[in-house]
């Protein structure tokens, strides 16, 4: 099974490098579409296949330290635990949907081959980030995903897009620099880059001030990648400027794989949660949650509004991780920490589904009407029934209306905050949920409800493939919402339970990856 791990990176890379060749061929045009769809579906199939397996580690080139402990940990490891599997499934799901949506949507742009080349490079980078078992490859894949996303944001080459992309590029490379600095400090302290081997030395290093310098750089770097509030300035420009399926990928999975997953991996698995880190995570989460939604309420650009909500919703996930870390650091009951982390990870998955769907809906309305200003839209319910229906489902999900998926994950996070006795945070999370609801009532009123403006009288529903992509995600939203409470109360959700256990594993991660502790 572990031979599938490098394939998760190699397959999108191979697809990415074939695309420009097919672009040069020009004929037949459907070949690019076919390759993209097949690659997406293969990735989804592999990530579903991986779900049934336990912890797996693949040592590139057979440099397996457990074979001979005296050789030390130098090989490149790809490691797959529950958290990785959850992220891989999320990435593949959104990838497939974004590819299907792109088939028609991207025909307005001339060079679809180059688009899919960058697209699959980004997917390869994200898969690499979540699979990487050592910090340096983590950094390299982070850069692969980030650089392709910079170019994708600027894909339209209009002045706004270039401006947004340049801002994103400068802040993104600064973030990468910070991350590399943190990795360098950790390497200096431990003499190794393997995450498990670093974790093994954490007991002797505890309290070392250099560790806090490294953690500070990680917070700045990964906080920038996750667009947590004080580091969020680039996101509301970059995400709306990209083509709609890329917005869906960026908001849906990129900020999670590069930001939130990385924060969880670094602070829970590599450094181990302490009270200080927990406070920082909770502060970042609470700030992002509140500031994001307050900034979103006043927006009139559909995609910009969604981008601000991404900041806010990611705040929920980071807050939940922070609560989990705080309970663990205090030595509190593991069940409460587990509940918070479960809620956070569930929200991460849900957010990928409904925010991608919302961005696709905004792309569909823009495709049909040519505008994304809320005030110029309206009355699309009859003209575009599929898009409107999907937009309704996604809005209800993100607003936290039962029985949609967003409600359950927010409920679990708030319940965990109450159980951990962070009553203020629970109240804040409830307030933000309410503000989100208000904001999406506005979206519903201006996009779907109201009068159809005369200039949009000839508006028609988007092509079937774009509709299919949206319906798929809407089914995920409803399915997760309906099944989640039933599954959680009966047998549990293996996907999320294993991911939670992976976050909680802590020192056990060392034994599972290295196959026994090293001398």
């Amino acid at each position: 099974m572990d031979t599938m791990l490098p394939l998760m990176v190699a397959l999108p890379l191979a697809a990415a490098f074939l695309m420009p060749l097919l672009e040069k061929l020009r004929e037949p045009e459907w070949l690019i579409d076919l390759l993209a769809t097949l690659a997406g579906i293969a990735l989804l199939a592999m990530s579903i296949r991986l779900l049934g397996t336990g912890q797996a580690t693949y040592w590139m080139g057979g440099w397996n330290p457990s074979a001979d402990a005296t050789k030390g940990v130098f090989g490149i490891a790809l490691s797959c635990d529950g958290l990785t599997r959850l992220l891989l499934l999320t990435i593949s799901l959104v990838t497939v949907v974004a590819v299907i949506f792109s088939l028609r949507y991207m025909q307005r742009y001339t060079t679809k081959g180059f688009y899919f080349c960058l697209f699959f490079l980004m997917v390869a980078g994200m898969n690499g980030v979540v699979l990487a078992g050592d910090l340096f490859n983590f950094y390299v894949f982070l850069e692969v995903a980030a650089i392709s996303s910079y170019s994708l944001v600027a894909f339209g080459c209009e002045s706004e897009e270039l401006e947004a992309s340049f801002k994103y590029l400068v802040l993104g490379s600064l973030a990468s620099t910070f991350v590399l600095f943190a990795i360098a400090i950790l390497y200096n302290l431990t003499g190794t880059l393997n995450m498990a081997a670093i974790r093994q030395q954490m007991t002797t290093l505890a309290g070392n001030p250099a560790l806090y310098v490294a953690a500070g750089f990680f917070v700045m770097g990964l906080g920038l990648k996750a667009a947590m509030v004080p580091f969020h300035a680039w996101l509301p420009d970059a995400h709306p400027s990209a083509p709609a399926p890329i917005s869906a990928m960026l908001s849906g999975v990129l900020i999670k794989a590069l930001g939130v997953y990385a924060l969880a991996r670094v602070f829970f698995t590599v450094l181990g949660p302490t009270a200080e880190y927990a406070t920082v995570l909770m502060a970042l989460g609470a700030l992002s949650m509140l500031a994001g939604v307050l900034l979103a309420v006043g927006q009139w650009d559909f995609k910009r509004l969604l981008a601000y909500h991404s900041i806010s919703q990611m705040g929920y996930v980071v807050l939940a991780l922070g609560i989990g870390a705080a309970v663990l650091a205090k030595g509190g009951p593991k069940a409460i920490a587990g509940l918070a982390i479960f809620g956070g990870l569930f929200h991460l998955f849900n957010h990928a589904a409904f925010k991608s769907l919302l961005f696709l809906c905004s792309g569909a309305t823009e495709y049909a009407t040519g505008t994304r200003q809320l005030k110029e839209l309206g009355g699309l319910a009859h003209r575009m029934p599929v898009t409107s229906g999907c937009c309704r489902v996604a809005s209800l999900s993100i607003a936290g209306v039962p029985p949609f998926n967003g409600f359950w994950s927010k409920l679990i996070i708030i319940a965990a905050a109450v159980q951990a006795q962070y009553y203020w945070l629970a109240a804040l999370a409830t307030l933000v949920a309410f503000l989100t609801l208000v904001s999406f009532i506005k979206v519903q009123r201006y996009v779907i409800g109201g009068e159809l403006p005369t200039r949009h009288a000839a508006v028609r529903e988007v092509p079937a493939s774009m509709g299919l992509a949206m319906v798929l995600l809407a089914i995920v939203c409803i399915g997760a919402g309906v099944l989640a409470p039933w599954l959680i109360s009966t047998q549990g959700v293996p996907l999320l339970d294993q991911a939670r256990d992976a976050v909680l594993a802590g020192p056990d991660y060392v034994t599972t990856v290295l196959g026994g502790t090293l001398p």
Partner: protein
Amino acid sequence: MAPYLLTMVLLAIGVYAIACKRNLIKVIIGVMIAEYAVNLFLILMGYRTGGHAPIRTAAMDEAAGAANAAQAFAAGAVDPLPQALILTSIVIGLGVVALMAAMAIRLHEKYGTFDVAEMRKLRG
């Protein structure tokens, strides 16, 4: 310790240029300075006064004697890993800078200026 702190100063200069300079080219230079601060930091970690290349030769073993050849080698060799790391990081930096320069050129075509303050189509 001082050289390490100097790399931090270099990083701070880069961050200053990114945050405060209005000219796109100067911002790009700021990013490059920040990147090179990390590269210097990495290479400093592998540095060892009077160290030799981490390649073990037969002549080296003969000079040290068979019994403690490995220890003598390890005591003098520099750490090769940071060098491999900055090689990768330089290549990544090159890609980023090339992309930034390309975008700066396109932005100059659109706006006719490199001044960030005059590029204001996006509103927060």
